[in-house]
């Protein structure tokens, strides 16, 4: 049942096991240094604005992770390659992590700036529903096991989930259309005031993107190893 190749999944791969982790660590250290030491505080919001350098990227990449999951799900339904399914799963898990971090970093900023932890603003509502869709996708996989039928069901859900998003965006826009988006737009403008801020934002983006890629690759290796273990124990039992 498993797709055992000539190279075992545990074999070392210089890209995955040396360069990617090294680059991620370097970028992350640089980003942290820039965010906490180098970049000046934003004039109006003060120190708490620094969370924005991570928050914005986390949100976009969480969103992107969903698109990757959906694309990989389509590929899996069309061709049935195990690797496509692993990519879909890994991207959903890291996406859920990033979405969770968005939902943690957002309120930390919102409390001092907006005065509340949470409001039903379009983007906030959108993020929390996105989180729930990710969670339900992973729950289906968790409860269903690694049966081939479940993998296909999960792929269908991955596709349906991403098609739901445009409908969701329209619904929330119509629902909360009267609310001003000024507060959200403002901090992006202010953030660009100082060139150092732009550089910090870029470095933080690179660091988080590398982290996303590294986690996805590790997660895919993990599930490949899992399959190998299962195949081996089936062999032993037979």
């Amino acid at each position, binding site marked *: 049942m498993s797709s055992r190749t000539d190279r075992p999944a545990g074999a070392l791969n210089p890209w995955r096991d040396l360069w990617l982790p090294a680059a991620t660590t370097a970028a992350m250290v640089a980003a942290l240094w820039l965010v906490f030491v180098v970049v000046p505080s934003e004039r109006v919001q003060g120190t708490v604005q620094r969370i924005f350098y991570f928050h914005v990227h986390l949100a976009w990449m969480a969103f992107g992770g969903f698109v990757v999951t959906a694309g990989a799900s389509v590929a899996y339904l069309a061709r049935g390659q195990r690797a496509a399914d692993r990519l879909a799963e890994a991207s959903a898990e890291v996406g859920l992590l990033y979405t969770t971090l968005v939902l943690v970093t957002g309120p930390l900023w919102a409390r001092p700036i907006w005065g509340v932890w949470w409001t039903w603003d379009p983007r906030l509502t959108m993020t929390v529903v996105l989180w*729930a869709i990710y969670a339900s996708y992973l729950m289906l996989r968790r409860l269903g096991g690694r049966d081939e039928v479940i993998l296909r069901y999960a792929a269908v859900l991955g596709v349906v989930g991403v098609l739901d998003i445009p*409908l969701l965006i329209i*619904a929330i826009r119509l629902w909360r259309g009267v609310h001003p988006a000024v507060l959200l737009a403002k901090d992006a403008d202010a953030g660009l005031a100082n060139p150092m801020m732009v550089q910090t934002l870029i470095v933080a983006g690179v660091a988080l993107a590398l982290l996303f890629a590294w986690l996805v690759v590790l997660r895919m290796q993990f599930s490949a190893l899992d399959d190998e273990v299962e195949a081996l124990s089936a062999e032993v039992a037979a």
Partner: protein
Amino acid sequence: MWVILRKDLAIERRTGEILSSLLLLALLMVLVFAFTLEPERLRDPGLLAGLLWATLLFSSTLAFGRSVVLEREAGAWTALAMAPIDRGAVFLGKVAANLVLLLGAAILVLPVMAVLLGTRALVPSALLGLSLVLGTTGMAAAGTLGAALASRTRAREVLLPIVTFPLLAPLLIAVVRTTAGGLVGTPLVALRPWLVLLGSFDLVFLVVGWLTFDHVLED
């Protein structure tokens, strides 16, 4: 597709199992709302719309789960997969049967809720009818797909709402607005964007379910 619809409705006519439990559950939900939310505060038609759809959401979850489980228990799921028909048609047939039940329940539950909660205004209007039809169609489509996806797991009763509720978020936001508008007699054109959204939701889920059921039914 029509055969599946007729078959599911025939089972329902004989047993009356799903519709009666749908209705009883909906009634109990009204009681729960009255006990937990203070009946005096529930007179607002806007609230009635929200409570109606919350009720339908919870009750439909159980009914849809039932409709797939019945097939699996009878071993008919495999038979359906092997039948020489388009599997998309199986999906549409299931949705149609669930839609008939859910819409029936909605039509029966709405006046009961309005009476028990003492809603001040209740104007039967085209907008109200349209909201009920579009809302239950989307719910039936997403719910049927969700029920099929959840049916192979250990904890399918838990998983079904977990899978369908987030997907139904846009539908719920829209249908509660149009239903509330329909209850107080808002002109239809005022809520046109919402109705378009509901229609698109229905279309997306019907088409996606129809296309993907090929993979779902293939055990």
